[in-house]
Structures are given as structure tokens and as C-alpha cells.
């Protein structure tokens, strides 16, 4: 069989290469997009279809200990949503937190071909890589939760900057991560040590290490720039979910100055109002700051109504969620590295706070001036499962549908939001940016998110339908690395994507500082900690930025 493929007659949306709905051919050879192919190439006629690069999810939770805790916590969710095997694909269970196989297949059936798990404590890396290996179709990677690491905080406190850089480089190599993740910086140790204790202000020095969240963020931003990581620190700010937290978020962004920084699920950090009272929207303030600062990127973390699962390394925020739900939840501790909280949640249309959260996310999308930097996410499954992406796309593209939805939700919340006044409708090209090209650019993935020559042949072909929810829910073709995986809406083969990771260089002498800490405080020996390369299976290094 020829490994050449030509997609003809499709309407191509490729914002990176300034192609906006032109009819043109895409040629594929050996898993990459090429200038031309021979006449023997297989032809896929995409007449009347929309052709885009495969989707890239910059922030989701699809593997690791917290995901498994969430799976174990919710058998009822799985029972009601079996995912049967087909001739080509394996079985699993769905629900808000699907099993590994179902996760990969369901991403593929939305036209997504790349996804990054946003929070993995390095201690769990070995298992995460095995889980990712069992997540079919998509390429994947993850961010290493290092922001609250005891050893690294110690280095920051003592001002040992050079060692901090070497240590982070060592860690990213040891755990095969993609970038650093900072979650509620400085809050973990107070929380673990003292009941209901947390850091509340970005300049509040925790009594554990005598450093502030700002010190941690600042140090990590420098390290990412020094190492040339393709994606800057991925920051989950302090005070997630609290009224009035937008000031913390803006301060966090100010900390970056003109250095690169990514703010995760920014919707959850865009609340005005007084602490302890009902939140108000600060969507406009937040989005204006991001609009004006090209060094900042963010993903929205939209809330969608229905079942979700809060899963986070920010254990205090999960505890706060549980105070609302009064149902089961899990609080866990990953020794020196992180905390963790998991709690099933249900966003309800008639609840003021939930409706406002929904509106704030949409405000941020609709006020955004740069879709390349304000990209698409639901913080799956925190704001909603990734399976709700098509509906969110419809909300952005269809003003009438949005207004209908606005009229159904809590009106008090709508009166506090400017959502009704926003008439913007996203174009297909803008959707291609926020779901594909933008996240790929934020991640520094040169070969993803576009259809130019040399790009990975990750391609989605949608039927051009009026109803965008239907359209984005069922691509006609999904092509992964040049291999058609879904054809005419059906899986025709099984395919396993690769793990994407970075390999920054480090000075091996850093191990002399690390080893004693491991021997004293870790439950695992230093020599057994680093994950060996064969856990990577199929993988690709993403090159570092040239300074």
C-alpha cells in the first residue's frame, strides 16, 4: 500500500499559513505534509468538507494518580456509559473521566490528535507514561508539577538560582515532562501542615519556607527562559475559585514582566467581589490585561453545565468544592512534591455561581483580541468533560444559540455579566486558531496545529454543517501521522500516538545535591527515581528554543 495520500477539494482552514477556507489539496507522505505526491497516492475526496489540522488540547487531565482516583471514585459514572470494543478499537468505559482507551478514541472522534495532561507529580511519571502509552490515537505529553516541591522551594529560599535551574532540568529529564507546572504556589505545605491553612496573597510569605508565591513564580519563569523550554511555566494561580481572586491573577501576570508565562484555566481566576460573598465577573479586567501583554498566554477553562470532576493538585480548592457538594471526595498527598484533591461536581444552570462561571468563560472568549494566546479549554474534566467541546464551539460561533442558552440560566448571574451585550461570533478560522494553531504555538510545537509543508499529518475533515455542534462532534475523517484512523465516521484502524517531551541539558553534579535529599526524605531511592527511556515507548523530543 502506498503511504501517500492526497486530500482533494476540501475547504482548508490553516491560519498559520493564512489559508482561510480556500479549496486546495493537501499532500501527505510518510506521516508528514509534503508539497506534492505521485499519481499513485490514495485520494480522499473532501468535497463539501472542512479540512483543519488535528485539535491540540493544551490543558486537560487524562492520566496519572488523580485521574485514577477520580475513576475509582465514580463507578456509577462508568456503569451508565459503556464504551464497547469494535473490530478495530478496544473497549473501555466513558463518563466524565473515561478509561485510557476510551479517552483516546473519544478525543479522536472530536477531531483532536494531541493532548497534554496538565498536572503530574514526577513521582508518578512511570505510571503516567504507561497510561499514556495505552491512550490511543493522540500524541500526548504532560507538565511536571514542581512548583510546590520542597527541595526546589528550599533552593529558591536560599537564592541558589543556578542549582534551581539544574535541578529543574534534571527533573524534566528524569520524569520525561514537557514543562513545569505550578499549582497554588506556596500553598501546599501550609495546607498539609495545618488545618485549613493556605496562602491567600501572592506576596504572603508562607511560614514554612519564608518565600512568597511571587518568588516561586518568578524563579520558575527565569528557569524556563534559561533552559529554553518550548512552553513557559504553566501556572494555576493562587486563590482559585475565590471571589476577588482576579487581583491575584493580574499580580501573577505582572510578575512575568515581559517574560513568557501561561495562565491555566483563567476563567477560574477571574472573579471579582468580596471573599466569602457571591462572586462577580472580572472577565473584562483579566482579558484586557492579557490582550495588552503579548508575553502572556492562557487557556480559558470554560465551565459547561452538567457533571464534571474537580481534580487538582490544589487540595484546598477541592476541599472548598466538597463543602458545597457534601458528597464524596478525596484528599491526597504526594510526599515532597504535591497535594491532590478530587471531588465530583455538577454545574447547574439555575445556580448563580455556576451560571456566572459559565458567563465569565464566554466573556473571556468573546472579548479576546488575540485568539492565538487565549485558547480553548474546559480544564477537562474540571470545567466540563472534553466531550462538551463541540457545544462550546457552537456557543462561540452561533449568537442565537448563545442567547437561547443565556435565557435559560440563572438571570441574576446574567445581570451581573456583560455576556448579553457581546455579539461576536467566532469564524471557522478563529476556531481553528483557538483549538489548534494557537495551542500548538503556545506549546512551541512547530509541527502541529497547521497544514504547511513539513507539519505532522494530523488532519481532521469535518462535514460542513450549519449546526457547529454536530459538525465538530463527528469528523468524517481523522488522519493521524498520515494514517487515516477514522473514515466515514468509523474507526478503520487502531493507532497509538507518541509521547512528546523535552530534554534540557543539565550539569550532572546537581545529583550530588539531590541525592542526600532523596535518601533523607523520599520513599524511593534516588537511583530508582528517574524513569528509564523504555517507558517512553514511541516518543519525540521537542527541541528547546534557541536563546
Amino acid at each position: 500500500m502506498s503511504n501517500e495520500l492526497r486530500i482533494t477539494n476540501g475547504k482548508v482552514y490553516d491560519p498559520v499559513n493564512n489559508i482561510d477556507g480556500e479549496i486546495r489539496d493537501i499532500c501527505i507522505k510518510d506521516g508528514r505534509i509534503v508539497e506534492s505526491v505521485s499519481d499513485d497516492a490514495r485520494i480522499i475526496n473532501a468535497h463539501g468538507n472542512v479540512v483543519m489540522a488535528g485539535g491540540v488540547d493544551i490543558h486537560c487531565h487524562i492520566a496519572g494518580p488523580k485521574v485514577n482516583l477520580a475513576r475509582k471514585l465514580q463507578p456509577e459514572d462508568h456503569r451508565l456509559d459503556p464504551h464497547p470494543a469494535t473490530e478495530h478499537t478496544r473497549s473501555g468505559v466513558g463518563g466524565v473521566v473515561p478509561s485510557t482507551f476510551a479517552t483516546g478514541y473519544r478525543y479522536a472522534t472530536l477531531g483532536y490528535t494531541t493532548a497534554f495532561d496538565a498536572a503530574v507529580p514526577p513521582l508518578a511519571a512511570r505510571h503516567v507514561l504507561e497510561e499514556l502509552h495505552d491512550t490511543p490515537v493522540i500524541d500526548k505529553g504532560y507538565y511536571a508539577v514542581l512548583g510546590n516541591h520542597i527541595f526546589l522551594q528550599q533552593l529558591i529560599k536560599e537564592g541558589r538560582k543556578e542549582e534551581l535551574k539544574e535541578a529543574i532540568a534534571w527533573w524534566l529529564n528524569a520524569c520525561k515532562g514537557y514543562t513545569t507546572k505550578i499549582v497554588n504556589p506556596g500553598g501546599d505545605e501550609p495546607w498539609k501542615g495545618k488545618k485549613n491553612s493556605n496562602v491567600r496573597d501572592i506576596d504572603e510569605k508562607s511560614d514554612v519556607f519564608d518565600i512568597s508565591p511571587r518568588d516561586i513564580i518568578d524563579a520558575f519563569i527565569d528557569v524556563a527562559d534559561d533552559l529554553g523550554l518550548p512552553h513557559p511555566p504553566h501556572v494555576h494561580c493562587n486563590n482559585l475559585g475565590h471571589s476577588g481572586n482576579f487581583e491575584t491573577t493580574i499580580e501573577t501576570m505582572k510578575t512575568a514582566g515581559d517574560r513568557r508565562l501561561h495562565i491555566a484555566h483563567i476563567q477560574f481566576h477571574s472573579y471579582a467581589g468580596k471573599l466569602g460573598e457571591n462572586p462577580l465577573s472580572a472577565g473584562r479586567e483579566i482579558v484586557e490585561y492579557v490582550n495588552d501583554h503579548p508575553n502572556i498566554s492562557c487557556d480559558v477553562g470554560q465551565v459547561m453545565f452538567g457533571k464534571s470532576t474537580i481534580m487538582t493538585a490544589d487540595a484546598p480548592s477541592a476541599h472548598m468544592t466538597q463543602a458545597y457538594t457534601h458528597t464524596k471526595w478525596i484528599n491526597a498527598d504526594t510526599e515532597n512534591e504535591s497535594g491532590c484533591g478530587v471531588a465530583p461536581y455538577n454545574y447547574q444552570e439555575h445556580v448563580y455561581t455556576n451560571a456566572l462561571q459559565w458567563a465569565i468563560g464566554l466573556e473571556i472568549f468573546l472579548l479576546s483580541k488575540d485568539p492565538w494566546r487565549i485558547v480553548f479549554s474546559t480544564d477537562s474534566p474540571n470545567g466540563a468533560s472534553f466531550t462538551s467541546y463541540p457545544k462550546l464551539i457552537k456557543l462561540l460561533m452561533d449568537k442565537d444559540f448563545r442567547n437561547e442558552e443565556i435565557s435559560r440560566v440563572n438571570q441574576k448571574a446574567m445581570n451581573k455579566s456583560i455576556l448579553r451585550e457581546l455579539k461576536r461570533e467566532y469564524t471557522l478560522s478563529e476556531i481553528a486558531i483557538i483549538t489548534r494553531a494557537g495551542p500548538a504555538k503556545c506549546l512551541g510545537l512547530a509541527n502541529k496545529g497547521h497544514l504547511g509543508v513539513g507539519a505532522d499529518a494530523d488532519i481532521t475533515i469535518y462535514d460542513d454543517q450549519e449546526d457547529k455542534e454536530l459538525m465538530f462532534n463527528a469528523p468524517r475523517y481523522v488522519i493521524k501521522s498520515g494514517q487515516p484512523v477514522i473514515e466515514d465516521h468509523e474507526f478503520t484502524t487502531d493507532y497509538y500516538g507518541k509521547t512528546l517531551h523535552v530534554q534540557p541539558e543539565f550539569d550532572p553534579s546537581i545529583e550530588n545535591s539531590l541525592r542526600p535529599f532523596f535518601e533523607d526524605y523520599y520513599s524511593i531511592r534516588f537511583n530508582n527515581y528517574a524513569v528509564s527511556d523504555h517507558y517512553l515507548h514511541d516518543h519525540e523530543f521537542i527541541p528547546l528554543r534557541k536563546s
Partner: protein
Amino acid sequence: MSTAHLKLHTKPEVPLEADVLNTAKLAGLSQSGIEHLSVMHGNEKASLGDFFKVTGKGNSEIRLEGDLSNIKMIGAGMSDGKIVVEGDVGMHLGIGMSGGEIVVEGDAGDWVGPEMSGGRIIIKKNAGHMVGAAYRGHTTGITGGEIFVHGDAKNEIGSGMRRGFIAIGGNAGDFTGVNMLAGTIVVLGELGIRTGAGMRRGTIASLEDAPMLPSFEYACTYRPLFLRFYLRKLQENGFKRKIQDKHLNGIYKRYSGDGIELNRGEVLLFSK
């Protein structure tokens, strides 16, 4: 009006998942139509005719005969009509049923009527664990309907129950009414240990004394009028053996709990 009559001719070697044995699924089917309904025998597809001899046509009543203790999910999702089982049945009888009636002349397995919302299930002999319970992970069990077990039942009767009525003629296992949200459970025999653990609201009554958890507080001794009506209703439904006049007119100890939850539930134990 004929009745579909299914007689077991081959006992399945491994459990058979027969959720097709349901008045709605059989309605209007001919004899051979019923025989060709597919069931899961272990991990293999089979048809009803491989195990049952069918006479009559599908209608609002189904009669099943034989030792069905290896047959699961009979009457799943049933909304009306009647199923009569002349023999024992297996697990998951009447899952999520919303109406109609299931009568079992013999014993029933575990999970009788889990998460049902209406209708009535009558077990003439004993039932297994998890009568009228929530499936694992769910917080809510049955939301309506009645389950009458004339014999004994094992652990976790009515777990997570929100509404409805469960009556056990014999003894109950441990954890009766665990995590119960509301509703009523009457046990004519003895209760096991840890009755009502985690219950928020609802009533559990017994004609015998029982050990109570320390998180249940003794409230008073009184004559609960409503219980007399419940017991009379049970007498009318054939629970004659244990209910005597002293139970109808007697006084009961009331415990309120569970103190670790809302503390709005009650356990009534016959005193004299």
C-alpha cells in the same frame, strides 16, 4: 389474553444476563420471536430459546418456571405488567423498574430492585444482600416502589434509599438502611448490627430489640400511630406470622440518628 410462559429446559452453566425478560420487550412477540431474543451467556451471545421452552405469546404477563438462580437482570427497567417466577431467581432482579409487579415464589439473589423508582417486587422466600440498594458509587438507591421479602434478607437493605417502602418478614443482615436518605424499612424479625449507619432521614422499624450504634441517640418511648397502619397493610399482604396485636398497639423505643450525618433519621424498636 394469553400469557407468555417460559419454562427452563437447560440451566445455564454460567450466569445468563436476561434483561430481555421484561414485559415491554416481549410485548407483541410470537413464540419464535421470544425464543430468538438475545441474551448474554457469560461472554457469549445466545438466545432465550437455548434455555427456555416458550409457549404463548408476549403479553402483559410473563410466567417463568424453573431454577432461575443463575439468571440475572430479570425485569430490568420494567414499567408495567407482571412477571411471576415459579422458582428461584438470580441477581439484579428488576433493576431500575418504574412500574408493574414481579412475584418470586422462591428465593432471590443479591440486588433485588436496585435503584427502582416504582412498582412492586414480592419475594415469597429469602433474598440476598443489597435489597433495594444503590449501586456502588451512587448516593441514591430506590426512589419509589415497594419491595416485600417474606423471608430473610442479608446486608445493606435499602442502602441510599430516598423514597419507597421495603418490608422484610424475617431477619435482616447488617447495615440495614445504610446511608439512607429517606423512606421506610420495616423488619419484622431481628436487625443485624450497625443499623442505619450514615442515615440522614427516614424510618427503620423492627419488632425486635437491636444493638444500636453509639451515634444514635435514644429519644423517647412512644406509640407510633403510623406504624400501626404499615403493619396492618403488611398483614393484608400476607405478612401474618409475626405481627401480633401487641405489635399493633405496643410502644416503641425511638432512636434518632445518624449523629454523624443530619441526625434526622429514626430507628423504632418494639419495647412492649
